[in-house]
């Protein structure tokens, strides 16, 4: 087989050494590479041939160690499994930056301490249920159906691509992030774990309900762990365990009840139910401001035609939450 044709690959690499550089800057390189060349190989070539001071993390080069996550043209990617060709085709060049939401130590190397702190915070170990003993040599007491409940979560390689892509992490340090919550899900559904109710109760204040379900984590994940979908599962389970106790769960349950009444959203009523009266009072000036332009907000929707059908669907599928 002959060697594949090469293309010109312009690469712009983020460089920054805190304490030495006043500000980050971008260093430009151009390489001749086969289109299928992984971006990690391109960066290692730059380091060995052009600038030995370039800092980056990597290890296995096989998309399993999770070390080389970075931003490739603003997307969170593993550099070892992202080829140069499609990026050049789409953008004309490749801009390489460190992951977001973690402080830069040097160039493409970030301080992952916040990410790992959030992971430790969910207590990522089995708290064994004595009803599921695992004496030495005993077979795994889980059935295949129980293993299926983990869904894709055991695939996680902790690369932090999701953490880097998450706008809730960016805006609020209280949010544990997609990876920690996907891991939490894995322990919550583990039948050997005795703490699943406690885990669901403890994750709620300030944490679980900050997920925006924007699904950026699910797109960023190189292993298709689908964190946003497991966070949705956690929310439903949390309501089942604890009822509507947080602003987030109150909103979800009130919304559901709203639709069960008229089939349509009643914006004012929903605000009242979610905020509660005291918090609502603080929102009144903002509400009045919006009402001046949008008086329909005050309108109570009439029930839709065929509301009886919606009511019967609710009767069939909406079990009462545990109080």
């Amino acid at each position, binding site marked *: 087989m002959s060697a594949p044709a090469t293309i010109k690959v312009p690469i712009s690499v983020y460089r920054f050494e805190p304490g030495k550089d006043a500000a980050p800057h971008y260093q430009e390189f151009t390489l001749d590479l086969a289109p299928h060349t992984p971006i990690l190989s391109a960066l290692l070539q730059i380091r060995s041939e052009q600038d030995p001071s370039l800092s980056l993390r990597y290890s296995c080069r096989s998309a399993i160690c999770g070390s080389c996550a970075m931003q490739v043209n603003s997307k969170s990617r593993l550099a070892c499994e992202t080829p140069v060709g499609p990026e050049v085709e789409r953008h004309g060049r490749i801009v390489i930056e460190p992951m977001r939401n973690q402080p830069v130590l040097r160039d493409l190397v970030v301080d992952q301490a916040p990410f790992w702190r959030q992971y430790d915070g969910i207590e990522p170990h089995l708290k064994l249920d004595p009803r599921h003993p695992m004496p030495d040599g005993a077979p795994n007491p889980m059935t295949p159906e129980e293993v299926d409940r983990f869904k894709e979560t055991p695939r996680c390689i902790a690369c932090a691509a999701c953490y880097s892509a998450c706008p809730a992490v960016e805006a609020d340090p209280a949010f544990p992030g997609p990876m920690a919550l996907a891991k939490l899900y894995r322990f919550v559904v583990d039948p050997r774990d005795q703490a699943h109710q406690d885990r669901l109760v403890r994750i709620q204040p300030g944490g679980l309900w900050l997920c925006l*379900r924007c699904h950026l984590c699910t797109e960023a994940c190189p292993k298709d762990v689908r964190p946003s979908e497991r966070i949705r599962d956690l929310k439903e389970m949390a309501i089942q365990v604890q009822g509507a106790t947080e602003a987030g769960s109150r909103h979800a349950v009130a919304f559901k009840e709203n639709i069960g009444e008229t089939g349509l959203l009643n914006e004012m009523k929903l605000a009242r139910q979610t905020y509660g009266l005291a918090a609502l009072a603080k929102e009144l000036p903002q509400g009045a401001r919006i009402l001046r332009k949008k008086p329909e907000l005050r309108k109570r929707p009439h029930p839709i035609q065929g509301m009886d059908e919606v009511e019967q*669907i609710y009767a069939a599928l909406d079990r009462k939450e545990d109080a």
Partner: protein
Amino acid sequence: MKLAYYPGCVAQESGKELDLATRWVCRALGIELVEFPTFSCCGSGFVDEANEVLNVAINARNLAIAEKAGLDLLTICSTCTGMLSLANLRMKDPKVRGRVDGALKPLGIEYRGSVRVKHLLRVLTEDVGLTAVKAKVVRPLAGLKVGAFYGCHLLRPADELGWESPEEPHAFEDLLSAVGADPVFYRGRVMCCGFPIQFVKGETASRIGGRQILDAKQHGAHAMATPCPLCHISLDAYQNRAETAVGQKLDMPVFHLPQVVGLALGASPEELGLPRHLVPVEPALARIGAASRA
């Protein structure tokens, strides 16, 4: 072209201007909208959080209404698009389908799965086509730099929606170019507006929305445009709070998608409900010579 029109709740209430603009643009482009007073809310992602199967069932009912009429569904909200598409996908799971059918069949409702859910953006770019849109332009939005803001559920998860790149879409920018505007590319265009947690933790929501507006502004946008009325609430009605969150004035006019198209096709600002916005759109209108009569 004839489509079942699913306006969603917000466009029938506080976002009425979106409904007005959609009707104007569809009339101008020969899209016949068939209305069904039987449609319920899509659940907006919140019902999905409270009860996944119930959420699929109410949307399967909506889809069955369109299926019975032999029509595909036109949506004008990213979240409605996402929830109805999710129902289409989840109904392929035999376990979910079994439970949903168990609730629907006693009511004489059966959803066979044939309805395609199409947002107006997709209908304009794929079905009407950019050439046909361009041919109707009487007031090109020349010189107006517009930052498209997609809204999450129009794009992600991509395997449920299956049309645009979830991280690097271009349909909206293509449409903006077709009506003569200059699309602005900025990272925030595919990010979240913060709306889903507006009621959970308002300051965090506004910080998220504010960052995207600021990003568009720093990339030179004179205005933003969104295909989602929930994003519009975050970016327009709550822009004052976004300004507080990011610590600076933003003054960013935010259009609904059909308003941008309508302006180029010759509609007046009043016909498109533009006076209903919280952030004045006049600075953007002045750039294209479309000042309001008001």
